[in-house]
Every structure is written in C-alpha cells, then in structure tokens.
C-alpha cells in the first residue's frame, strides 16, 4: 500500500546533501514550512541554493537557515521584508549570492521546470537592468527575453491536509509557490496539519495531485514565523 508518511521532520530531510538546490514554499510566513526548515538546520547540509520569494524574517525559519551560513545562493524576487536583517548583512559582506528574478518570472520558471519546459519567452524585464545577460527575441513585433526552467533537488512545502498518496489541500494564500515547487523538485517534502483517509479529499478539489509529493510529515500545530519573531525566538 502506498503511504508517503514519514515519522518526522528529521527523517524527511535526512538525505539532503551539501550543495543541493532547495525550493522552499511560502510568501513571507504564509506557507513557510518552518518545522522542515528547522529540521534542515539541525541536519547540517550546507552550500545550499535556496529558491524562495523572500529571505525570511527574524532569526527563525529561512532566516535562521541563512544565518547559520548554510545558504550560498538565494534565488528570489524580494529579499527585503519587514524584520529581515539576516540576509542584508550577509549580502553586504559578500557571504551570500543573490539571483534576483521578477516574481512572475520566478513562478513561471518553476512551473516550466516541473513541466519539462527548458525555456520560454516573457516580456517581463525587457528594457530593465534585469534583462542583462538574457537572450532577446521578437515575436509579432514585441520584444521578449528567454528565461530558463528551474528545477530543484528538493522542495520543502507546507499544506493544510494530505492523504496517504500525497494529494494536497492548502490554506488560503499559503498556497502560493507550493503547488509549482512540488512539480519542479526531484523530491518533494510536505508538512501537513492533517492527514486524511484516502477518498476524503474530493477529487475535484485536489490542488496538488499526489504524484508530485514524495514524503509527508504530520505537524498538527505548526509554528508561525511572526509569533516566533514577536517572542524573540532565535533558532536553534
């Protein structure tokens, strides 16, 4: 019987290797898989390339992973946010590289990676500094840049509920990047608040079909980044 449940976050992240590319779900704290990220900090892998819209806040979750010096390279659209101090410091001191990607291009690159599309054209960034180094091309009289599909070794995402096959439901705008990251990673780890019996999720309402999910960790009461930051928590 297929059952993608894993005992806990530590077991789920055990095989993440130094230098891996990791997509981490979330837009700010909404959808941030904070328990999986903390397990990754404990696990110790370093030299990571991380794909996330932001760079975390305070000293927990993604910001803590960056602060621990595990991230060599960030691919994101908006590295500046409220309570984001860790990334700016390391970036200014040259200790972390940044690839800045427009948000919609980032989303489409991830989706393309998951869909077996190695490259696509978009008008976004044409005529701006972010077109630098990109091939340009005209279609029907308008200029576009060539963007590459993006894949990862692992995706760490958060969902509301899963069944044993890995079919996923999300919570509101915490959905954001998770469904596309699940498609673009060779191994997708998901932390879910609830595990439902197979058949409990309406097949019409499944957001991420189980084929895109490899490991499910049950975190019934996940922490919230903003709560931890407000309480001054610093992980570990």
């Amino acid at each position, binding site marked *: 019987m297929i059952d993608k449940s894993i005992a806990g976050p530590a077991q789920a992240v055990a095989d993440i290797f130094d230098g891996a590319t990791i997509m981490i779900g979330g*837009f700010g704290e909404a959808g941030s898989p904070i328990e999986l990220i903390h397990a990754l900090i404990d696990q110790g892998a370093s030299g990571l390339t991380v794909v996330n819209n932001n760079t975390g806040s305070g000293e927990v979750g993604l910001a803590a992973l960056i602060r621990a010096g595990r991230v060599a390279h960030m691919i994101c659209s908006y590295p500046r946010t409220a309570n984001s101090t860790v990334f700016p410091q390391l970036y200014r001191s040259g200790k972390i590289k940044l690839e800045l990607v427009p*948000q919609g291009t980032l989303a489409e690159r991830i989706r393309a990676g998951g869909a077996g599309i190695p490259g696509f054209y978009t008008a976004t960034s044409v005529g701006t500094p972010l077109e630098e180094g990109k091939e340009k091309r005209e279609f029907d009289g308008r200029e576009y840049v060539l963007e590459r599909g993006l894949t990862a070794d692992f995706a760490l995402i958060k969902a509301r509920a899963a069944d044993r096959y890995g079919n996923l439901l999300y919570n*509101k705008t915490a*959905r954001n990047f998770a469904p596309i990251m699940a498609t673009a990673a060779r191994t997708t780890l998901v932390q879910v608040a609830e595990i439902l019996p197979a058949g409990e999720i309406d097949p019409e309402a499944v957001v991420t079909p189980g084929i895109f999910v490899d490991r499910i960790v049950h975190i019934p009461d996940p922490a919230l980044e903003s709560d931890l930051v407000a309480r001054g928590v610093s992980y570990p």
Partner: protein
Amino acid sequence: MSPDPTHPGLSRDEMARRVAIDIPDGSYVNLGIGMPERITQFVPAGRELIYHTENGLLGMGPAPAEGEGDPELINAGKRRVTVIPGAAYFHHADSFTMIRGGHIDVCVLGALQVACNGDLANWSTGAPDAIPAVGGAMDLVAGVKTIYVLTQHCTKHGDPKLVERCTYPLTGKAVVDRVYTDLAVIDITPQGFRVVELSPGIEFDYVQERTAAPLLPPSQD
C-alpha cells in the same frame, strides 16, 4: 484662484478618490502597496471592482479588525486581508497567468520616476549598497492592460518625479498610461505628457514648474 501655498493640490485620499472615478465597473484591479490601496475606499456607489493580489487571491476584501484574520490570508504587502463571497485562491503561476496574460484590467502603482515616454522606475534607486528587490512590479507593468501611476508630483525633497528620461533603473519601458498626482492628471501620449485635468486651485504653470519635461495642455476637442 491660486493654490494654497501651505497645502496645494489634493490630499492622499482625494488622489485615491480621483483614480477610483476612472476605474470602470466590473474591472479586475491590482493595487500596489501603499497609497494605491486607499482606492478601495472611494469606489463610486453602484460599481463593483474585483481585487487581485499577486500572491494568489482574486476577490480580496478589506483588512480584518486589528488582531483578527488569518496570518495565511494576506496580500502582496504581507498584511492580513479578507475575502468576498465569490473569491478564489490559486498558486503563483496561475496568478501571474492573470497578470502576464493580460487578464487584469487596471494596475495602480507608485513611482520613483515616470518619463514622458511612459517609462516607469519604481523598484530601485540604483544606490550601490541597496539590496535589490523587485517583486511583481515588472510582471505587472509588462502584462496589465492599463497602468496607472498614483504618486505625489514631487519627492519629499521637491524634486520632480515626472521627467524627460528616468535616471533610476527601469521597471518597464513605455508602460504607463496615466499619472495621477496631487497636482494633476496627466496622460502619456505619443507627444509626451499631456495634462488631462488640473487639481482644484492648481494652475498649469505651477505644475509645469514642478515637472522635468514639457507638459501639453488639455486637448481641446
């Protein structure tokens, strides 16, 4: 009538109200963070606009009461919001399909500079020590049908934001349709900036003095 020298032009709320008047009933609208968000408060009675937020929601409602709401129900500015009956959640690629695919009718954004050819700079001052951050701004200006800029006419230091050519890094080339400032409503036309409307008590020359590119007077149709 000459402008009140201590507070000439429109207040922020009046500016937001002025933009709201121009957004047709039934439009799908994306509002930038900050002043554009005020527009929702001034939609004329009888009109229904649908608000899109690029992090994955169509049918965004007002902010919840302080301390209420769900930390996983937020807008692009990462503030808590609510949903209207008839809302829909979707992932980021679907959200930017709406933007890049030309499905959003109107986007209202702030600006650092707008050039008379419609170039927009609103994401970076290009300062060497700044952490670059772009978010969805470049996608919005490249994809949304109508781009309105809502901004003070000049910076806090009194420098013009409406210019001949942007000196800050661009967000997009030739993307702005219209600019709403405290002093005037100004269209981008093939001939450059054209004043559509002056704010009450504001005279044309007063606006021209605060604009670093020639202004055309309202067309006389």
